[in-house]
């Protein structure tokens, strides 16, 4: 059996009925990693010994406890954690050499929740250092490659998690999304990637990039899998005062409900010059499918979109410069001069925009623009239920193609960053393939509308089944 093509739903069924064991599945993951990860560079640290130990433990539990799958909804599911996720006694680098030897004394809240739910941590994944990037190339280690085309980037910053799920090294790859970092790799790797509402999932123990933007989500092959994981990770955390006591929906329960009468908005500001025609056509084809499923599509306007990237690249570096202050060279091995170029760029930008005399002109002004962007979305959601945009204006680009031009790199997130400014959820859904490369479609909803996003994406996925198209390591 091709274990690597399975979904969480399949695996849970098979574990329950004893078709294979946790141990077999876990071993299979490591065999795959050892065979392929040299080409992909998805992992920075493997957790093989612990993972196999857990797998044995769970196999025992399955034998002895009939209700174990109710108690542990992700029992035996191999999971890859982005290296911003703090893991107790397991090396956590943030993709940076500054903390290249850091073994945290505690688990992030989400790490703990996933472990308690029975997920098996396979390893820690590669990423743009500190989450700064859209391609994975800003890692202080070897850049991750796209399993669908090894000469191309997998999208970032959660590059390793995206690639790992795409090539079957794990069934879930966790990520963080500050401007694009889950949705872009999901789009470039043919996955479902959720950027949840800000405050839906705890940030405690996730190494901060920009605290008022960071959201904690994950990538999976299918919508069901994705919803299943959010049921575990979502919720109020007394250790994170920005989480909220809003009810957690039973996201998997509504999948399959129809979307007749759903109103989809196409923000006209997102379908303009710079958008690759082939990508545009793919999204338009997908919209036709959604219409066939009962949705109606109309154009809407998000008038302040033009200012979004500028505001984003003032506010985010401001918070970045603050959050990276703690790596002062005293307590963690690396001194500040070994920060990578992108981190240095953001520290300088942010220090400048926060300095007295410039604060009002930059930070404060950008914060006001942020409010306008948020209001744009609120107004749009009075007219329509969800918005649909491309994930990226282009197909996955070549490794090295944009590294010399940070501005070009920033623009790959142009459809994604505004969602973080507004704090609302966005879901990346496969929209098919162009020239053998995955194209992603973004579905955006109002605050805490994850259930609706899943509902829409699920029907679309049932219709298209793009997730079944597996990577062939082209150009290897």
């Amino acid at each position, binding site marked *: 059996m091709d274990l690597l093509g399975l979904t969480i739903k399949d695996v849970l069924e098979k574990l329950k009925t004893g078709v294979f064991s946790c141990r077999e599945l876990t071993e299979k993951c490591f065999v795959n990693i050892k065979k392929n990860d040299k080409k992909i560079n998805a992992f920075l640290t493997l957790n093989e010994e612990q993972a196999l130990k857990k797998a044995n433990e769970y196999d025992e539990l399955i034998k002895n406890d009939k209700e174990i799958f109710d108690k542990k909804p992700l029992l035996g599911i191999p999971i890859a954690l982005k290296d911003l996720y*703090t893991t107790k006694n397991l090396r956590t680098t943030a993709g940076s050499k500054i*903390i290249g030897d850091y073994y945290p004394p505690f688990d*992030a809240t989400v790490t703990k929740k996933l472990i308690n739910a029975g997920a098996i941590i396979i390893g820690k994944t590669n990423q743009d250092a500190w989450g700064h990037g859209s391609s994975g190339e800003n890692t202080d280690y070897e850049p991750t490659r796209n399993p669908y085309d090894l000469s191309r980037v997998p999208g970032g910053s959660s590059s390793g998690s995206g690639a790992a799920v795409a090539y079957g090294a794990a069934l879930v790859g966790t990520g963080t999304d500050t401007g694009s970092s889950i949705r872009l790799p999901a789009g470039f790797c043919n996955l479902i990637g959720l950027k949840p509402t800000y405050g839906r999932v705890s*940030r*405690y123990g996730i190494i901060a990039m*920009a605290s*008022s933007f960071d959201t904690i989500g994950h990538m999976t092959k299918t919508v069901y899998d994705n919803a299943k994981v959010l049921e575990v990770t979502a919720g109020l955390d007394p*250790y994170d005062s920005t989480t909220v006591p809003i009810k957690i929906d039973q996201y998997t329960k509504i999948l399959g409900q129809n979307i007749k009468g759903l109103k989809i908005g196409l923000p006209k500001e997102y379908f303009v010059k710079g958008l690759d025609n082939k990508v545009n056509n793919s999204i338009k084809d997908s919209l036709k499918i959604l219409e066939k499923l009962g949705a109606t599509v109309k154009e809407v306007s998000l008038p302040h979109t033009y200012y979004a990237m500028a505001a984003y690249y003032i506010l985010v570096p401001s918070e970045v410069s603050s959050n990276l202050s*703690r790596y002062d060279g005293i307590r963690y091995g690396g001194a500040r001069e070994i920060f990578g170029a992108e981190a240095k760029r953001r520290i300088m930008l942010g220090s400048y925009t926060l*300095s007295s005399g410039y604060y009002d002109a930059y930070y404060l002004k950008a914060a006001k623009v942020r409010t306008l962007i948020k209001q744009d979305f609120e107004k749009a959601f009075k007219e329509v239920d969800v918005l649909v945009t491309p994930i990226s204006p282009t197909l996955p680009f070549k490794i090295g193609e944009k590294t010399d031009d940070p501005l070009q790199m920033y623009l790959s997130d142009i459809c994604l960053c505004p969602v973080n400014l507004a704090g609302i959820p966005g879901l990346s859904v496969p929209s098919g393939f162009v020239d053998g490369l995955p194209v992603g479609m973004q579905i955006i909803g109002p605050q805490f509308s994850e259930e609706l996003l899943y509902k829409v994406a699920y029907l679309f996925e049932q219709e298209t089944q793009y997730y079944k198209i597996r990577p062939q390591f082209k150009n290897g």
Partner: protein
Amino acid sequence: MDKKYQTIIGMETHAELKTLSKMFCGCKNDPFHAEKPNIYTCPVCLGLPGALPVANKKAIEWTVKLGLALGCKINSFSKFDRKHYFYPDLPKGYQISQYDLPFCYDGKVETSFGPVGITRVHLEEDTGKLIHQKVNGRNVSLIDFNRSSVPLVEVVTEPEIYSSAQAKEYAKKLRQIIRYLDISDCDMEKGGMRLEANISLMKEGETKLPKYKVELKNINSFRFLEKGIEYEIERQKEILEKGLTPDQETRGYNAEKNITYTQRSKEEAADYRYFPDPDLPPIRFNNSWLNEIKSSVPEPLETVFIRWEKDFKINKQLSELLFETADEAKKLEEVFSNLSKSKLPVDKFVNLVVHKKITIDLFKQSVEEIISIYKKSVAVDDISDEELKKIIDKIIRANPQAVRDLKAGKTQSINFLVGQVMREAKKKIEFQRLKGLIISMLKMS
């Protein structure tokens, strides 16, 4: 000091709140009694990657309580900000403080020299503590994070203090109020309360504040505050007399030499790059929460003193010796009322307590128990004049020298004789009665 210059002082005072847990985590807040360094720490107060602060509600309430006791207005919308600077005892590279929206603003503290305006009262976190010592023959700097993220309240005054004596009185008064609210021990020696004075001199007749100010920092006693300011006034005067302007700088006070010295000059002035801490949602005080805090603010200290003077004839100086916290004052007042009702003299009770003739515990003992301790201490044993006279006679005979002294006008001798009689009688007898008897017997003989 001659009239040519007017001293202008503004003060900034920090006090560590004595909440059970720290400001932004659940660690024990007890840095001064910790057995070892770094035992009250966690990812949050160590500033480990990914850790997040959660604000201590009690500390916020206590800050507002202090603000209310100082007559401040309360910002119904407030927030925490990050203040950035690099220092080894600051693990996050920034301190969580409050910048433009402090919890409280615009209050005042009365002094005998006039009122001192309170600009603001805000809440922040304390830093770790650096310890410089030799380990295995090497000079090293160690960091103790037990103090890291302990809640720290800062009270800032207007530049409305005009002398070292007023500064000292203000600081003492502020400590008295904070202790009265029972929110901080204000232990100055250990650094639980720290004083800073911004001092400058204004030419007589000027109306604008001077262009410079000298910050005198980290002073740990009221006396040093006074001495340090006095030294500064003289130092600055000398510079001004030469037609120069003193440097804007931070200075420390050396108690041994009684001088101030440069710690940090203005060239190194930091830009703290304040911005709202995105990890902590803004704080909104709704009416019910604010009312709850208001109702926890005790009667002002001054009115307690005035009432006690009026109702119980206890002057303020004595009252100040009797209690520190509002709870103690409340319990004492219960005792006073009960004494009064029973027609027992409150002033006598106070006297015995202040002079430690009786020991009472306001919290472990009930009002009845305390009153019975008092009664016992003043109770006299029953003894007839006849019996007493026999004993007095015996003592007079045994102590001819004391009798001679007394007759010669050495009035203290009577105390000695009274004591001797009581010892012989093995009884407690009212002093005045005994004194009268002795004198009348000596007159007869």
